[in-house]
Every structure is written in C-alpha cells, then in structure tokens.
C-alpha cells in the first residue's frame, strides 16, 4: 500500500501496450479486444457484486439499457461517442439506483432471479417495440469523437483507444475503490451482515452502492458494445443467456483481480470464436465443456493460474 501498487502498475503497462498495439493489430483481433473490454467491464461490475456475496442472473438488463440508450440517441441525431457512452452509462446507473431500493433487500438465489425477471421484462418491452426493430434491433451510424469523424477502419481504431482509456480509468478506479472502507465492506457484508449492522453500518446500503456501481459499468459495457458492433438487438443484449455469459466470464476470470475480468472476457471470446470456426455444429458443446472444466479444475478462475505461478516462483 505504501509501496507502488502492483495491480495499478500492471494495468497501466497492459493498457499502454494495448494502446500502442492498436496501430498494429489485425482488425479482427482488435474487434475481439473491443468486445472483451466491453464484456469485461460488465464482469467487473459482477465481480464487485460477487465479492459482496451476490450474483446477478440479469445484468443483461443494464448491458441492454446501456446499449439501447446509446443506440436510441443516435436515432435522434447524437453521434458523439463521449456523449453516447456517458448517456448509456448514466441511464443504466439511474435504473440500477431505482431498482436497487427493491433488490438490496434480497440475497442469494432470490437476488439472482429477481434480476433475471427484470431483465426479461426489458427483453419483452424491446421485442414489443416495433419502432426499435423488435427482435431485429437496429443499426447505428459510426460514432464521432468530439467532432472527429473517422471513416472505415479508423472508426474501430479510434473506438478501441477511446474504450481503452475509459476502461483503464474505470478499472483502476475499481481497484482503488476496493481498498477503501466502503470497498472492503464487500467482504464484510458477504461474510456477516449481522456483524456489519452491529458495527453500525447498513448492509443494505453497502449492497445498494455496489449494485448501482455494477449497473453503471454494465451500462458502460453495453454502450461500448453497441458502438463497436454498430447494432443492437434484444437477443444479443438483453436475453437471459447473455446474463449467463457475463456470469460465465466472471467465473472464468475469478474474483481475485480486477484486470482478470478482461482476460476472462478475452478467453471467452476466443473459445467461442475458435469453436465457431472449427466446430460449427458443436460450438455450444465446446463452450459448455470449457465452462465445466473451469468450474471443476480451476475453481478460482484463470487468475488462480497467475497466483500459482507466483507461488512457484516465490
């Protein structure tokens, strides 16, 4: 703590390397990278919840709100990425703040499922809204960046840098936050709510804060995803299995380190991409099998590999 924070150093190096690599990366790698950053951000929110002992099977709700809020703003003529992502993040945050008053009363599987119920209501609303293309969704124009309007590949290059900068800020922010008293209360609430109450703080308030935070980053991820793909649709953004994928990534990553969520998201994308390419008939089999293997043999996620490595070194 008094020394240099290794995680912050590592994140800074990694993001700097990715920043430079942006100009050399194959397009499809950058695209996978963008998606991994977007999904990783959602997993980061879930990580914070998970440390509090809560799992949500409905965070596609906030992912979807973030994506749709950003996409709908393009329909009325706003194209600036800063504004769209800010608006998407905020919209999700506001919804999480409101629903938080209800959800903070719930724990365990009820928390997980109530989230799912809300996400399915959003799904239903989108499907029912023909103006938004129902299940087809709709596409977005490429974003502009404070007046700069890139064309062609430059859109993705710029978006990648944009995303990198913001995910860096968010991730380092989360890392530092987890070391504050409020951040540390995640552990306290997970371990013993009664004790937290009798130490003089409200466990529900702690949960509410974490919930709003997880909603904010999920909305951020959704908005980024909408810009990266250039398309929103309910099946890819608000359906229950999308929520399942986020939990999948969180498990894959482990909750040991904030940076791990992006690695988890990347590994997830790679498994899916290669399964799709080499085994198009049984890609679900491979995806499910990988998840099972992680659960059985790497119970603390990919990050535990790093821990093991470090132990064997030291």
């Amino acid at each position: 703590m008094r020394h240099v924070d290794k995680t912050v150093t590592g994140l800074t190096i990694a993001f700097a390397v990715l920043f430079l690599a942006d100009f050399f990366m194959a397009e499809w790698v950058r695209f996978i990278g963008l998606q991994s950053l977007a999904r990783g951000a959602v997993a980061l929110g879930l990580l914070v919840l998970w440390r509090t002992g809560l799992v949500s099977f409905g965070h596609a709700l906030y992912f979807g709100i973030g994506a749709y809020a950003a996409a709908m703003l393009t329909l009325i003529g706003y194209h600036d990425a800063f504004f769209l992502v800010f608006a998407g993040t905020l919209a999700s945050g506001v919804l999480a703040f409101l629903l938080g008053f209800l959800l903070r009363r719930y724990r365990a599987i009820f928390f997980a499922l109530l989230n799912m119920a809300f996400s399915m209501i959003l799904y239903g609303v989108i499907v029912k809204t023909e103006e938004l293309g129902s299940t087809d969704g709709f596409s977005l124009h490429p974003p502009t960046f404070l007046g700069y309007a890139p064309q062609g590949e430059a859109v993705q290059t710029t978006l990648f840098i944009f995303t990198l900068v913001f995910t860096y800020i968010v991730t380092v922010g989360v890392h530092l936050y987890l070391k504050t008293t409020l951040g540390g209360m995640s552990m306290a609430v997970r371990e013993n709510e009664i004790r937290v109450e009798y130490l003089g703080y409200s466990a529900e308030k702690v949960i509410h804060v974490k919930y709003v935070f997880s909603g904010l980053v999920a909305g951020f991820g959704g908005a980024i995803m909408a810009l990266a793909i250039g398309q929103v649709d309910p099946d890819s953004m608000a359906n229950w299995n999308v929520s399942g994928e986020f939990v999948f990534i969180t498990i894959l990553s482990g909750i040991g380190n904030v940076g791990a969520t992006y690695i988890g998201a990347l590994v997830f994308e790679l498994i899916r991409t290669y399964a799709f390419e080499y085994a198009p008939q049984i890609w679900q089999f491979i995806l499910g099998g990988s998840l099972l293997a992680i659960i059985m043999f790497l119970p603390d996620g990919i990050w535990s590999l790093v821990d093991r490595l470090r132990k064997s070194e030291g």
Partner: protein
Amino acid sequence: MNILKMGPGKAGLLATGLAAAVSFAAPANAADEVVMAVPTFLTGAGAPAFGVPARNGAEVIIEAINKGKLPAPYNNSGKGLAGRQIKAVIYDESGGGVKQVAEFRNKVQKQGVDLFVGYISSGTCAAITPVAEELKMLTIFPICGTPRIFEEINKTPKYVFRTMGHATADGVAEALYVKANMPGVKGYTGINQNYAWGQDSWRDFDLAMKQLMPSVPASDKAQWPKIFSGQYGAEISALMLSKEKLVHSSLWGGDLEAFIFQGSARGLFRKKDVLFSVADTSVYRLGKKAPFGSILGARGPYGIFAAGVDTPLNNWFRKVYIDRYSVPPVGGSYQAAQGVLAAKYAYDAAAKANGGKFPNKDQVIAALEGATYQGIAAPVHMNRSNGHQAATKHMIGVLQWDKEAGEPIMTKVTEFGPDCVMPPPGVNGTEWLKGGMKGAKC
C-alpha cells in the same frame, strides 16, 4: 483471500500476450479458390425449417458449380466461379445479430473470405448490412424478409445484394389473392409470432388489405404468441371464437407444426380459412397431417410451388436434391441455391467482360447490379434499390393432397408478376402500401 493483498498486475501482460499470440494466425487460402462463407442456421429452431434446407440447397449447387455440371442456361460456363473453385465455409447463424457481426468480421479479417452468400434471419441481415458495407465485402443475402435492409439501413448499397423479394411482396400477394378468391370475406384476424418477422408480416398484410379491401376490417384481437412457445391452446380457442373467418399466419418451423397439430385436433382448419405465408417449409414433412384447404405462400416461386416447373435447371435440382437428401427441396433450399447462382452468374459475366480474366470485386459487383439471371425456378430481376434488390414473381395457392402422386400439391395457384407485388424502384414499401400501391403492374 486477504483484502490487503491484491495480486500483482500480470493480468494485462497476459492479455497482451494472448492477443499477440492469436494475431499471428494469418489466413491461408489458396490463390485459385474463391472462399465463400455460407452462414445458415445449423442449430436452434431455425435449423430444420430454413437453415438445413438452405445449406443443402447451397451444397448441391456449389458442388455442381465446382464440377461444371450445371444444366442450361449454365451448361457452358465451365467449372467454378469464373474458373476458380469455390471453397465453402458453412457455419452457424445462431446467437443473434451482435454475435453474427463479430463472426462476420472474423471471417473477413481472419479467414480471408471473398464473399458471403447467406443469412436467413432478417435480424442478422439488418445487423450485417452496415458492417459488410464498411468492410467492403460482397455479401449476397439469399433469404431475409425485412424490407428495412435497403429502405432504412442502407439506401445506396454497394456491396450488399438480396436475391429474392422482401416481405412487402408477401403481404401484397396474399391480399391480392384474398381479394380475387375470397370476395365475400367479412374480416380477418391473425396469429403471428411476437417478434420482428411476425410483426412485419402482419403489418404488411394488414396494410395491403386496407388498400385492396378497405371495407373489410381487421380484428383487434390478432394473436401474438411468444416465438417458440409451442403451446397454442388458448390462441386456438380465441381464434375459433372470433367472428372473422380469415386467419393470417406467418408461423414457421416447429411453431407452425405444433399449431397445425393442435389446430387440426380441434377442427380449426375446417372452421376457419387460414392463410400461411411461409408454410411450405413444413408441407412435405407434415404429409397427410398438413392442413389441406388452407392458403399457402412460399415467399415466391419456390419449394412446393416450383414442383411443376419443367425446366432443365429445376428438374435437375429437384432430382439431385431428392436423391441426396431423400426429401424434396423447400423454399429455403431454392432461395439459397438462387443466391449461390447469383455469384455464379456475376463472376462469369464479369470475367467475360474482363476479357476472360478473373474479375476483381468491383467488376463482379458491376456485373450483378441490375442484372437479370436465371434462378432455379424463375428469373431473378435485380432491379430494385440501385440494382441490389431482386424482384421475382410471387405465387399463392391452396394446399391439397394429391392421392395419385401421394404427396401434397398446390391448387388454384395465382401468379403475380414481380412488378405487381414489389414496390417500384426507389419507393419505400410501407409508404407504397399506404399510398395505394401506385405503379403496381398486375
């Protein structure tokens, strides 16, 4: 886990390493091949109704192209696309638009695909269109219903083509058929899946009916079952209790088949006249359980409607297909084959214009724009949306059982010309419908 001891930041390094590792996997395709990606539903509910028949149709035609065995009018065009063999990359369209966009980029940037012939769902096509244009990738949609592709998403396409009519044509042909054959109809209701295709189908049929038969009211209780629900007991009751005799339905696949089983058991098809816009996907499979006497469409001159078309190409296609897959080709098979033929036509025509040399992408596109080429069962006119959207004739009829042949056949078939059911070039389908279908040549 000790909250005071966060791990070091190797996360990023690991990520960078992984990214670097995969980015070196460069595409390796032979120079004398054309890599054709063929996305279609291989899993999920879309597979049996559309995806697999489409794959089969594409496979039959690709194999024949590679061997140079296509009958007339393609019998003298040599092997492959302008002499190069097609390397087909068939993959799954499941998972929604976002995932398919990601996969599209992978195929283009990682696997070095030369062109796409595929996509069935309107949602995927809508999602793919902007990306295909951005990546300048020749993409032929053989199926996809939604008119929005070239009416909203990209009004001036350069790289994206669709080789069959869109959903507006279905609604118009159906309404025209009702007007001609059921003049006494007093009202109509519907049962459509509660998703984009179902909503579009009902809207277009409803708009066309309001123009063609303005005095016939639509029910305000059209049914909207959730897609893939499979349970239609209450909906069937509601339909049977409704006063409207005509029922419009764009159900397909498993939902359609379940609806037919449950409806037949309750006499729905005896009591109501049901108009199915895409039921050809299931007629052969249902055999004697099909709802005979119902009105059927196949989104054009495909599947069961093409059964009697006596041309060398069609006869050959049906024979090879049936020999190979033991079932007759349905709409999806025809449409996918028609999409692949567009590539065949365009590459060959472009090579010819290029003095016999293998054409570049722009030459292929130029050859296909505005062209008329021979589909399996009918000519395809690429004369809408700057020559990127096809118009074909459309057919509606009544399904009956042919005792002698022992198979279902279409009777009382009406043919509608391409300019009768498709909005004229440059006109938005919905506005065309609302404006009284001006310029239709029927």
